């Protein structure tokens, strides 16, 4: 018997529709595809983090045998820019590079080796420019301007009451600056795919993304061809976590495929991926929080500086999200939040699971723990005293769907094994190892928020083969969306899994459903099926009634077909038979709607929220500074569970990704260049780094009258972990960590400075 303890209240195991193909590797990822006459593409990226391009000469590369095309900015027929919010990133730089991932040329050749060699033969003459490697330097008046409108990408703020006056009345004030690192998504499949020119003049883009239609829109703009000429096949993917939401290799593959008339495969190496790919925004967050003696928080002031890197992508939205969540689930009368997202010559920061919430929640929960210590009250109690009630407005004063999630998760975590097992708390494996426990909570908005185009939709039909075909414009990148669709369809329609065909991730075959981001997939599938199931069932039953003569009210949908109240062993009429009967007028229902938003006009303001509480127990080795998370528990309130294995996997996987964020991960840059270029120096958790005891509790009850169904859980499991671990470190050795990833040197230094004494007394 193996000594691990992984438990949860998530019961019921269903085989994933993509499961067998994944464990046997029959499943072809888009980077596994190959086509006849396929060429290999490579992208030449900038040598400098900031430089003028004086000249580019591709002559030597073009003459290399086996090279079929070299492209530079001159070869972009349409808009030489991309970007999800506004296009400011050059596909191929004309005269200036702003980060080491900037593309200056690309090559298609008969082999990957030749393409690689050709890149080295392209002569680019640069004139290096001063490098802005820090957002605070970028804000200095003397800083070079990286974009026409300066170095500020976006500013956002929220204010209520008067913090200055309120601080005067506070008995206790805590002020701290928190620093959060540049985290890499580290999806195991790096960016890649194949772009195929088709005989009919169209192109097919087989490349992972989190929003196929958006890729199609951006590519049409770049290639200057109608969207109808582009088919984007965007699923499956070997992980994304937000990182493949923006365009990556698609424009280069498409330009090269069109120029050569051949399929072009590009699959970035890990180094290329690190260099060019998005990261989580490094943020510096200063919070000043004041409370009365009784533990009522009276004022909360927040300043956020985000390093957005060279280009915009979703940077503005990430900052809006951070500002929105700066007071989290707490009701504070006086709040002032100011955020600024700043261009630098560092790698591009953008969309990443948690979307600005991780950074700001780390700071907020750090404040709660520091305040509780100052006030001398239990940190859980301080949170409870200031927690939102079900009918309270959202964190920026907006109307939200009433939810008791904050209180639910706090209550659940207070009943956790970890917080109720005193023996475990004190258990330590050596005198040099000190243990501690920390708890934190998080609130997280779903969907893109107010004022953002956030359409959703789906289609359900009875296809020619008699399968109930359910189509969404979503992508499967591991999160288990296929299972969610299948389980919901079985439940809402009444058929069996054998009756269903699911189609996703192919713009030629699916309706627009919006992006597979922002914890919206599960939620939108549920909403779509609620809208479509009635009309779809009605049409099937009417047809069945017409064919069999049995009245509609005695019929229902079941496995394999339509059953009557009297049918016992087989359906009265099968789906195949109905499909045959309706072949001239197939049954098909489509729906289009918008993700539910708050009625208040707050840019990006959310309406649906999920909640999590995390308890962590750590063991700190005071000789080496190594922190090990021994136990981790999370309780999550996100509505009904659709696919228990997937839900559990999201929370466990999110927890471990956040453990990496807390203790290990930083895509370190020096003077605009990556120091960590691969998994030898950028360390993500291995199986040896994880807690050997985890417990996940899903709270399924929605607030009375809530009609919005299940919320997605893709992000919420990543948010509360870092502050819980850091509080546990304080509990163990009396050190308040303000900077992630937690530095071993800092721990050893702190322990040495206090001659290993003070923490023994500060602990209680």
């Amino acid at each position, binding site marked *: *018997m*193996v*000594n*691990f303890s*992984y438990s949860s209240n998530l019961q019921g*195991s269903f*085989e994933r529709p993509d*499961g*067998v*193909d*994944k*464990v*046997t*590797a*029959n499943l*072809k*990822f888009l980077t*596994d595809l190959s086509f006849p006459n396929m060429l290999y593409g490579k992208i030449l990226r900038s*040598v400098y983090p900031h430089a003028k391009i004086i000249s580019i000469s591709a002559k030597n590369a073009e003459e290399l045998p086996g090279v079929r095309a070299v492209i530079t900015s001159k070869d972009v027929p349409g808009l030489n820019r991309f970007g999800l919010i506004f296009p400011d990133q050059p596909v191929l730089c004309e005269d200036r590079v702003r980060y080491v991932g900037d593309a200056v040329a690309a090559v298609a050749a008969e082999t990957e080796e*030749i393409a690689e*060699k050709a890149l*080295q*033969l392209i*002569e*680019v*003459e640069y004139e290096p420019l001063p490098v802005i490697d820090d957002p605070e330097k970028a804000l200095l008046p003397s800083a070079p301007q990286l974009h026409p409108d300066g170095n500020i990408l976006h500013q956002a703020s929220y204010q209520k009451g008067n913090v200055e006056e309120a601080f005067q009345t506070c008995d206790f004030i805590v002020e701290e600056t928190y620093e959060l690192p540049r985290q890499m998504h*580290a*999806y*195991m*499949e*790096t960016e890649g795919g194949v772009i195929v020119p088709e005989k009919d003049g169209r192109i097919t883009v087989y490349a992972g993304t989190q929003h196929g239609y958006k890729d199609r829109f951006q590519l049409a703009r770049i290639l200057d061809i109608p969207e109808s000429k582009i088919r984007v096949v965007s699923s*499956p993917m*070997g*992980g994304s*976590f937000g990182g493949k939401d923006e365009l990556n290799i698609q424009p280069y593959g498409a330009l090269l495929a069109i120029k050569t008339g051949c399929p072009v495969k590009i699959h970035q*190496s*890990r180094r290329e991926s690190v260099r060019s790919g998005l990261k989580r925004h490094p943020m510096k967050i200063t919070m000043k929080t004041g409370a009365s003696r009784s533990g009522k928080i009276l004022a909360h002031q927040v300043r956020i500086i985000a390093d957005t890197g060279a280009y915009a992508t979703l940077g503005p939205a990430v900052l809006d999200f951070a500002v929105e969540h700066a007071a989290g689930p707490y009701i504070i009368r006086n709040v002032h939040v100011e955020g600024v997202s700043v261009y630098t010559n560092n790698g591009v920061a953008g969309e990443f699971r948690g979307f600005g919430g991780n950074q700001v929640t780390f700071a907020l929960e750090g404040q709660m723990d520091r305040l509780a210590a100052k006030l001398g009250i239990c940190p859980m109690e301080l949170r409870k005293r200031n927690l939102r009630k079900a009918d309270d407005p959202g964190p920026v004063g907006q109307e939200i769907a009433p939810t008791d999630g904050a209180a639910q998760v706090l209550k659940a975590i207070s009943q956790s094994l970890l917080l109720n097992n005193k023996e475990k708390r004190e258990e330590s494996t050596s005198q040099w190892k000190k243990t501690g426990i920390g708890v934190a909570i998080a609130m997280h908005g779903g969907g893109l928020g107010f004022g953002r185009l956030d359409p959703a939709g789906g289609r359900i039909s009875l296809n020619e083969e008699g399968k109930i075909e359910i189509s969404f414009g979503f992508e499967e*990148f*591991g*999160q*288990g969306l296929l299972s969610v669709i299948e389980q919901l369809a079985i439940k809402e329609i009444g058929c069996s899994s054998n009756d269903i065909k699911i189609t996703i991730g192919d713009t030629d075959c699916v309706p627009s459903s919006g992006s597979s981001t922002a914890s919206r997939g599960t939620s939108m599938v549920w909403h779509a099926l609620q809208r479509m199931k009635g009309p779809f069932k009605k049409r099937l039953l009417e047809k069945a009634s017409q064919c069999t003569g049995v009245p509609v009210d005695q019929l229902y949908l079941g496995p394999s077909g339509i059953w009557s109240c009297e049918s016992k062993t087989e359906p009265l009429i099968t789906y195949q038979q109905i499909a045959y009967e309706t072949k001239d007028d197939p049954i098909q229902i489509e729906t289009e709607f918008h993700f539910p938003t708050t009625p208040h006009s707050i840019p990006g303001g959310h309406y649906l929220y999920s909640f999590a509480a995390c308890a962590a127990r750590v063991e700190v080795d005071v000789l080496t500074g190594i922190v090990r998370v021994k136990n981790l528990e999370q309780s999550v309130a996100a509505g009904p569970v659709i696919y228990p*294995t*997937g839900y*559990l*996997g999201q929370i*466990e*996987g*999110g*927890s*471990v990704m956040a453990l990496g964020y807390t203790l290990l991960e930083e895509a370190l840059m020096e003077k605009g260049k990556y120091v960590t270029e*691969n*998994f*030898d120096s950028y360390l*993500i*958790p*291995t*199986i*040896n780094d*994880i807690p*050997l005891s985890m417990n996940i509790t899903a709270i399924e009850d929605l607030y009375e009258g809530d009609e919005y169904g299940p919320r997605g859980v893709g992000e919420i499991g990543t948010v509360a972990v870092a502050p819980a671990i850091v509080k546990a470190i304080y509990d163990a050795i009396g050190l308040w960590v303000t900077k992630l990833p937690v530095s071993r040197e800092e721990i050893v230094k702190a322990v040495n400075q206090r001659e290993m004494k003070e923490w023994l007394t500060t602990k209680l």
Partner: protein
Amino acid sequence: MADNKIVEKIKSPLEEKIKISLVVNGQEKELLVNATMRLADILREELQLTGTKVSCEIGRCGACSVIMDGKLVNSCLVRAYQANQKEILTIEGLGMNGLHPIQKAFLEEGGFQCGYCTPGMIIAVKALFDQYANPTKEQILEGLSGNLCRCTGYGGIIRAIQKLTES
């Protein structure tokens, strides 16, 4: 530019090929390949066995794990000449006669999400059980520490192994 002068000296990819023979998933293969071609590329490109994945290319992630003459190796670090006369087991060879118990356990316990590390991970679990019929906690952690999974947090993988050790 100085960079380009160095570049000009770089020779074109080696044209010389060597003949190797190896047994892949029980089938004998004779191939004419560059002596330094990576085993991962031989599998994926010469033999169209794309189940073996490539992710870091420096032997740190284990996505390309295969079993070579009974030992777990990163196929991105094995060159053609080193694979000559060797017997290779890839993910495609594991489930040839229906799902292997390891594959079943991964399916039932959520031992994967995106599926990209999965072939290498399952092969590493196979190597673990080949070595220890009833592995201890330390043996499991050691045996799988070379295989990165970014999705699951390893919970489902551990549950799958627990299931296998219990049966």
